[in-house]
């Protein structure tokens, strides 16, 4: 299935179809992740790969063009050769790989057993992925938040701040659909509550700040789709988003610095409370909150910037 979907991407020229196929590809891999016991990853892939990425790609299509133009030059053999060689090196590499699911593989022997056996005593959370993500390898996650922040900054730099053009007050396309409006008004609080649930439930089941942020962002995007950008920007001002993007990073890194000031190493949550387990708990709650804040802000900000671009007069396109 995955292979067939991927192959069709190569041969399709209609970009809209390609983007849709990519969404399907992404969902299929999310399904595969569940099969491989990676529920957290599946949730993220479904939200990000199938959701955010596809939406952004569609947004870009709306601003550019739908068709890929035919090649005038005959396709060169070089890319095919590069790909074949790379593939062969990979296959050569697999020859000494442990077989799928082999519990004796080195991957499962060295570092991982400690997470599985001791994380409950050291951190006190049933979801091992959350423990590793937020505590053992918390610094990677801080880096990840900074990456998101950087992406938000980049889109803001490229597409935002284009001067306040008077054309921005486009009436919302769907604001006159009474049914849609009523349903949206009813749905948005539910989505927000669900997002909060994911945010704070991540300690026990799959979920956490990142997934929650995406869902939270989605609620606002839905609002924007129905009521228009102008109104949405009145609810959440772009300037506020700019502060919020940074605030998440500050909360996360600030938690780390607090641990440092209390006598521990950077991000050592043991020092946040008298009891190390409580400290870990507070620390993880705080950093997950930081992740959620930045992700929400960045996703909304990226969406606003893309939409705002589309509202500008078309004459600018030469």
């Amino acid at each position, binding site marked *: 299935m*995955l*292979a067939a979907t991927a192959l069709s*991407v*190569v041969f399709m020229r209609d970009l809209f179809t390609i983007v849709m196929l*990519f969404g399907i*590809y992404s969902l299929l*891999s999310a399904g*595969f*992740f569940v099969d*491989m*016991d*990676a529920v*957290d*990853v599946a949730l*993220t*892939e479904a939200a990000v*790969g199938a959701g*955010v*990425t596809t939406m952004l*790609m569609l947004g*870009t299509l709306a601003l550019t*063009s739908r068709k*890929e133009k035919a090649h005038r030059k005959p396709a*060169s053999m070089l*890319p095919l050769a590069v*790909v074949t060689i*790379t*593939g062969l090196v*990979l*296959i050569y590499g*697999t*020859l000494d*790989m442990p*077989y*799928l699911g*082999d*519990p004796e593989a080195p*991957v*499962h022997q060295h*570092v*991982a057993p400690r*997470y*599985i056996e001791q994380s409950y005593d050291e951190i006190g959370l049933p*979801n091992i*992925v959350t423990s*590793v*993500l937020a505590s053992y390898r918390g610094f*990677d*996650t801080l880096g*990840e938040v900074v*990456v*998101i922040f950087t*992406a938000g900054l980049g*889109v803001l730099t*490229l*597409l935002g701040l284009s001067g306040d053009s008077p054309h921005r007050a486009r009436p919302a396309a769907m604001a006159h659909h009474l049914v849609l409006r009523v349903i949206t008004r009813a749905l948005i609080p539910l989505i927000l509550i669900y997002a909060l649930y994911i945010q704070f439930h991540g300690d026990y089941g799959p979920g956490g700040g990142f997934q929650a942020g995406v869902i939270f962002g989605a609620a606002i995007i839905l609002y924007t789709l129905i009521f228009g950008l102008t109104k949405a920007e009145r609810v959440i001002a772009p300037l506020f988003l700019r502060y919020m993007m940074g605030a998440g990073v500050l909360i996360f890194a600030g938690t780390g610095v607090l641990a440092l000031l209390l006598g521990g190493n950077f991000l050592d949550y043991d020092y946040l409370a008298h009891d190390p387990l409580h400290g870990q708990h507070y620390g993880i709650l705080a950093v997950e909150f930081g992740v959620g804040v930045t992700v929400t802000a960045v996703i909304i900000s*990226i969406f606003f*910037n*893309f939409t705002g671009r589309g509202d500008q007069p078309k004459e600018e396109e*030469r």
Partner: protein
Amino acid sequence: MSTTLGLYNYWIVIFLMMVGFYVVIAHGNLIKKIVGLNIFQTSVFILYITMGKVADGAAPILDDSVTSYSNPLPHVLILTAIVVGVATTALALALIVRIKEEYGTIEEDEIHSQDESL
């Protein structure tokens, strides 16, 4: 388990990876390049997740009734990598929008010919 059966999964993943990689380097349409890049990256994620699987293991959420768990570390790494991937994609798409505004096209060869004629 024979070599073919035990490694079959990896080979499928490698095939997917190479399809994505081919789209990135061979195609001239900027959006298609980004889709290819995403397929390439998603396949790498699948490779990581595959290696974390333990036969008969359960999802790594502690439960008294479960004795064998899949390896949580690859999951954590890939969570991070997925996020990095979407960040890159967002930035790339924003660049595409600007390129379209400046050049009026998103085909690589047309952009080159415009730059050369300057």
